[in-house]
């Protein structure tokens, strides 16, 4: 086709070419036209392969003083079709670098915007005389741009790291390598997503952070050249992030005391265990509350914030030194110890009875009467019983008991115990003896 274009003098393309200044020169080309051979074909056309998206061309100058310059032609195949690439004015203008678009006006639709990686072209050159008469063409020579860069060797991913995966590889050997694209996928077949654009050939490590516990990932890497061209990726390599500790086993109630539940569990065996967190779930609550943070050696904890007779449950989680936390252990249900408070209506009044818990260190008890005005202390007694004699018929009474230690510290109050004194109550009546326990 190019041959056809140049077959006759004064074609539009040739005219356009002559209107253009040749590269690096202010000399305008003469009007080119085919003519009887007067000049020889240029010799020793050389095209250098392996350059990044460019193909340098050079040839030996023709020494004939009538030479006005040269015309270069380019084709994707040896057989053509060849198209005009550039016109160069001057007998000694024997160098041209092909970077894609042709160097003549209106020819941008003929050549690529830029050369791509691994692209092969064939070139010919012909000289023209000062009056524009074109000489014969040289032999065609081929050259190839640098191929897409090979991936770096020895991509490695280190497993068992807390929520991260360190990666390392050998630097790319391709001289045009300018960086890397690192990708991660959930399977060896992908889908892969880009996690890093590394714009330095010598940066050969990366840490993929912010990952979940015990996650399996596949990584691959490709090299990027200075023109942004990306080569094939490596085979994917696998990495698994560090698992969280195992859930503690054997959570159990070790002891129950008034206002306190003591729990224990079997020690975890992870070497890097930092400790445990005991959590409480109250009957009415949906969320767990922290009870205690413990170091790795401690496998017993006391919850001292339980109400007497309260139903609750516990779980324990293990934590390692990286902050990874296990799934919760199996849940343990507990009913905490209560006051065992009861009330009996007799002829001399309301008899209150409770467990004094002397073996737990309690010495005395406060007897409280709850009214709409608030709480009023009725008595401060030792022992396990007390009689409220000052009661009236037809009245409802609500009592609480609070146990105290010798140092004055008190247990949590008992739950409310309610008892109604009947209207007919004046004295002891057989059959009216009632043994009441806390409501609710």
């Amino acid at each position, binding site marked *: 086709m190019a041959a056809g274009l140049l077959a006759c003098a004064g074609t539009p393309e040739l005219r356009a070419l002559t209107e253009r200044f040749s590269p690096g020169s202010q000399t305008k080309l003469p009007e080119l036209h085919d003519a009887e051979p007067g000049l020889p074909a240029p010799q020793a056309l050389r095209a250098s392969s392996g350059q990044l998206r460019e193909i340098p061309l050079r040839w030996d100058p023709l020494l004939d003083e009538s030479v006005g310059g040269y015309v270069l032609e380019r084709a994707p195949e040896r057989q053509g079709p060849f198209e005009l690439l550039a016109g160069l004015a001057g007998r000694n203008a024997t160098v041209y670098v092909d970077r894609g678009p042709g160097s003549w006006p209106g020819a941008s639709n003929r050549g690529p915007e830029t050369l791509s990686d691994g692209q092969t072209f064939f070139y010919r050159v012909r000289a023209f005389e000062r009056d524009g008469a074109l000489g014969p063409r040289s032999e065609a020579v081929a050259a190839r741009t640098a191929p897409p860069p090979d991936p770096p060797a020895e991509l*490695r*991913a*280190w*497993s*068992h790291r807390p929520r991260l995966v*360190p*990666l*390392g590889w050998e630097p790319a050997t391709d001289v045009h390598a300018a960086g890397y694209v690192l990708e*991660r*996928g*959930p*399977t*060896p077949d992908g*889908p892969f*997503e880009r*996690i*890093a654009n590394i714009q330095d050939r010598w*940066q*050969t*490590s*990366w*840490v*993929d*952070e912010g*990952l*979940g516990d*015990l*996650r*399996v*990932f*596949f990584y691959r890497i490709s090299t990027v050249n200075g023109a942004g061209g990306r080569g094939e990726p490596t*085979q*994917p*390599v*696998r*990495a*698994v*992030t560090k*698992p969280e500790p*195992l859930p503690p*086993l054997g959570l159990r109630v070790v002891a129950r005391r008034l206002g306190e539940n003591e729990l224990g569990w079997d020690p975890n*065996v*992870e*070497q890097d265990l930092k400790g445990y967190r005991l959590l409480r779930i109250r009957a009415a609550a949906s969320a767990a509350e922290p009870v205690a943070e413990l170091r790795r050696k401690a496998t017993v904890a006391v919850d001292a914030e339980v109400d007497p007779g309260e139903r609750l449950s516990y779980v324990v989680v293990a934590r390692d030194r990286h902050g990874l936390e296990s*799934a919760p252990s199996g849940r343990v249900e507990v009913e905490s110890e209560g006051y065992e408070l009861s009330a009996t209506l007799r002829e001399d009044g309301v008899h209150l009875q409770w467990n004094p818990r002397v073996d737990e260190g309690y010495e005395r008890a406060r007897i409280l009467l709850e009214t709409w005005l608030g709480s009023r202390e009725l008595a401060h007694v030792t022992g396990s019983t007390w009689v409220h004699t000052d009661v009236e018929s037809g009245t409802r009474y609500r009592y609480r008991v609070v146990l105290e230690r010798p140092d004055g510290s008190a247990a949590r109050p008992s739950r409310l115990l309610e008892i109604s004194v009947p209207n007919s109550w004046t004295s002891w009546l057989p059959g009216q003896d009632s043994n009441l326990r806390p409501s609710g």
Partner: protein
Amino acid sequence: MRAPAIASLAALLVSCTTPVESGQRLYQEGDRLGALETWRSVPPDSEGYTGAQARIAELEPEFERLVQEYEQSAREYEAQGRLTEAILDYRLVLKLEPEDQATFDHVQQLARTRAAQKAELEARYAQVSNARDLVLARKTLEELRRLDPFDAALETRSRLLDEQLGSAIEAKMQSGRDAFAAGDYPAAARSFRAVLILDAENEAARGYLSYIDTMRREREAAPMLAAGGADPNSSATDNEMRAEGFHLGALAAERRGEPYTAIRLEMRAIEAVPDHAGARQHLQQLRRRQAGDVDALVEAGRIAFSEEDLRTAIELWDRALLVDPDNERVRAYVGRASHQLENLELLRAAPADTDAGGGS
């Protein structure tokens, strides 16, 4: 419903991502169960229901396959005593099937077994290290690394120990070479035997010992030679020494009833010295003797291959190739099985545990 699914649905509401996209994000982040639960939680009357169902249909078989692969891999590791790797794979099973109580119990039990074994090996290592018994220390360290290849401290220890062993071996080798060059063969033999205590496979030490023994026998047979100045054998090259060492190792392996090890060692002897007549002759004898086993090895390999035990299959076929190296059929079997194994190996991480620099 699990927390990730709840979280993802919440994120869905505020960020306007579709359920399929939200589940896909979890999937990309390695949370298959979270992804599956997110897609399963999409109500049938929702716009994203069809897309979610399509993803579920794709993921469920993958899920099932992964569980099987992790289980198989875990069992293999467990059988080999590589408990840390076994636990990791069992935990991957649990990650996908958190309600699998039997696996959970097994993992807890394995974790305790590993901890007990590790404590015992650590104590033994401390003891033999204090006693400067480098050979036992290396053996114990190998056992520890087998048990827990992810323990970074072991790698450091291993490097230090290798350095110590290397120095000790080199010192004794040098001492042996010096004595050998000076013609003090009894002293040289003592040094080379000491090397073999540290490194039983050290073929150079074996080679020297073999030459010393040959010279001793020759002297006994022809006492006149003893006064004849420098012994030509003392100028033997290192390669000849190594070849002799491999050859001796092969003879020893045969005596132990390990013909395939013997073949391998003779092949290495011939590699070092191609015209080692003893090695060539012995190799021929060994191959002739084992020729009857080739068919059985090939068949056993085929059975192992059909049971997806690729490593065993390759090992059996490799043995067949040791005896019959030109067997193209077996070579093709090995190639195919190796390729499959490579693909399987992609599912396992390299167990090394070294910090890399860089950042994200």
